[in-house]
């Protein structure tokens, strides 16, 4: 049961020195009620992909090809890229909500937290009475762990963790089917981050929404996600369940990422890291974009671009896996 189907989506940024292919040919499914982790380095296209799905891209970014289809719980599939202004307004927040990286910037500094939730309710659910809206606001804040008295507080009066909770409360306001979370915990401390992650999981159990969780922190994703998609240079290079990816990554890039994290327990395994730097997307390397940094690269890697094909578990785009798979 897919709630969102992305097919062959490409996004370019037009620039003076040629188009930057930020997202190329990405196909991805989001299942109902799952947490899908989207991981990759900065510039790998993960945020651009999320913004394309939420229709938040503005020039110079342009969707050059592909489709995004949203499936309502009951009813016709919706072509997200073809929605008009009014339809888009109805789609956003009711069906799909976004929580941005920095809640400090995502919240309006001159309006109270309560007013900002009220704003969403008033515009997207005009039939609610004032009293119902206040009740809903208090209820939402309580659900994310903010006291009702903080309703009248301004963003600057809240700590970083509280602000992020408030941003999540706004996203939950209309019970969306999909919530896109773009690095929601990057600015927070580990202890607070852990609490927010737990909160997201409990809320998901309760409301049954699907989450696209974007971060560069793969070890964090392994803990929270059901499935993970790894992006490199604008393409999805591997997908799979969090468990499978942790145990047996099939793409050398995933392996490199996993072995870049120092471990807290167990023997002090040698860290591999990944040599080199991410490619310039104006002129990505020919063949597999990862081959200049890959330890397993073969001659064919610079000539032929591997397709994302189903593997043992999930999908992988690597020539090595065409026959045997990556050696560890």
């Amino acid at each position: 049961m897919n709630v969102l189907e992305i097919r062959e989506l490409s996004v370019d940024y037009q620039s003076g020195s040629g188009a930057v292919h930020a997202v190329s040919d990405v196909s991805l499914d989001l299942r109902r009620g799952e947490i899908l982790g989207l991981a990759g380095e900065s510039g790998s296209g993960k945020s651009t992909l999320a913004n394309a799905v939420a229709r938040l891209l503005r020039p110079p970014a342009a969707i050059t090809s592909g489709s995004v289809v949203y499936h309502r719980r009951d009813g016709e599939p919706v072509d997200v890229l073809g929605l008009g202004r009014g339809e888009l307004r109805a789609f956003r927040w009711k069906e799909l909500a976004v929580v941005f990286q920095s809640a400090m910037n995502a919240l309006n500094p001159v309006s109270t937290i309560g007013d900002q939730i009220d704003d969403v309710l008033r515009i997207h659910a005009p039939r609610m009475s004032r009293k119902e809206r206040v009740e809903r606001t208090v209820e939402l804040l309580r659900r994310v762990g903010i006291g009702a008295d903080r309703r009248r507080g301004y963003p600057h009066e809240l700590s970083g963790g509280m602000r992020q909770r408030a941003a999540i409360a706004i996203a939950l306001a209309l019970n969306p089917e999909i919530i896109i979370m773009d690095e929601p915990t990057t600015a927070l401390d580990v202890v607070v981050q852990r609490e927010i992650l737990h909160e997201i999981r409990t809320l998901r159990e309760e409301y049954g929404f699907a989450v696209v969780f974007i971060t560069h922190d793969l070890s964090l994703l392994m803990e929270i996600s059901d499935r993970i998609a790894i992006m490199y240079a604008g393409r999805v290079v591997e997908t799979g369940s969090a468990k499978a990816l942790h145990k047996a990554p099939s793409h050398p890039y995933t392996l490199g990422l996993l072995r870049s994290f120092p471990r807290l327990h167990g023997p002090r395994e040698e860290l591999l890291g990944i040599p080199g730097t991410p490619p310039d997307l104006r002129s990505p390397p020919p063949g597999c974009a990862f081959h200049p940094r890959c330890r397993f690269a073969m001659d064919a890697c610079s000539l032929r671009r591997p397709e994302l094909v189903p593997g043992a578990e999930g999908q992988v785009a690597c020539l090595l896996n065409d026959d045997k798979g990556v050696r560890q």
Partner: protein
Amino acid sequence: MSGEIVLEGRNLTKHFTAARGPRGRFGRRPPVRAVEEVSLALRAGTVTALVGESGCGKSTVARLLAQVYPATSGEVLLRGERVKAHRGPAFRDYRRQVQLIFQDPFASLNPFHRVRYHLARPLRIHGHVRSSAHEQEQVAELLERVSLTPVDQFMDKMPHELSGGQRQRVAIARALAVRPIALIADEPVSMLDVSIRLGVLRLLEELADESGLALLYITHDIASARYFAEDITVMYAGRLIESGDGETLTQSPAHPYTKLLLESAPDPDRVTAPAATRHGEPPSLIEPPSGCRFHPRCPVALPVCSERVPGRTEVGEGHWTHCWQAEETALLR
């Protein structure tokens, strides 16, 4: 194993006075008690880590050690000698021996100048060059040391042409230009991509190892501290709470806050998710909690914890903590 003590802070305390805000009693603004009684020693050729959440005062400690501003009380010792060098020639002399590396390599390089300029300036200011050919040679050598090769290519690049990791390497080369004996790295990799971090940390480790630099690695990531530092000191709300060698501290922590920090760190190897309880948030440093500053969030707090500040308890060789619980267990032993 570890060399002589190069840079040391003894009982460093720093209170900041707010420039604005409500006045308290006697028309005074209450101070922010950012750092209280912090003692820390850096040894030659050794990486020491200072770990804590944001706002716990770890950067303030770095700046006190670097003499960016004076301490409210306590002293800084360089090679055993007390220093007070906040301006003028004394400060310049101190800066020749103790260098800082900052978190954000995008902000710490001047966008209008080439890499060559960034490295040549400290060489000239601190009188390490004789001629322009000599300068060229030294700049090349610095770039070589931080593995920015081919050297000729990197020398004439502008900061915007470099990636985050490369910029941080330039910042490290710049710090090395004055040939310091101590290097303070304040979150040197937290703004970099995961795949890049390792290389920069390895470089710092090598520098400490080969050049005998005393290195303070300030971070919020306790797992990386375990890999790259010999000793770890944990800080909470302006106070040191636990210190020991990296392996002991991460595998058998003594302080409840260190335990919480370790439990909260993302770890894909974890079998069961840690129990989720709300721990609240770090306290305000204007009115810090009485006694142990961690007691409002502490799962094992005793009545005494809110009354008196716990003293130092030795829990093993070179491993100590400030905790009443540890004190009690030590007494029972």
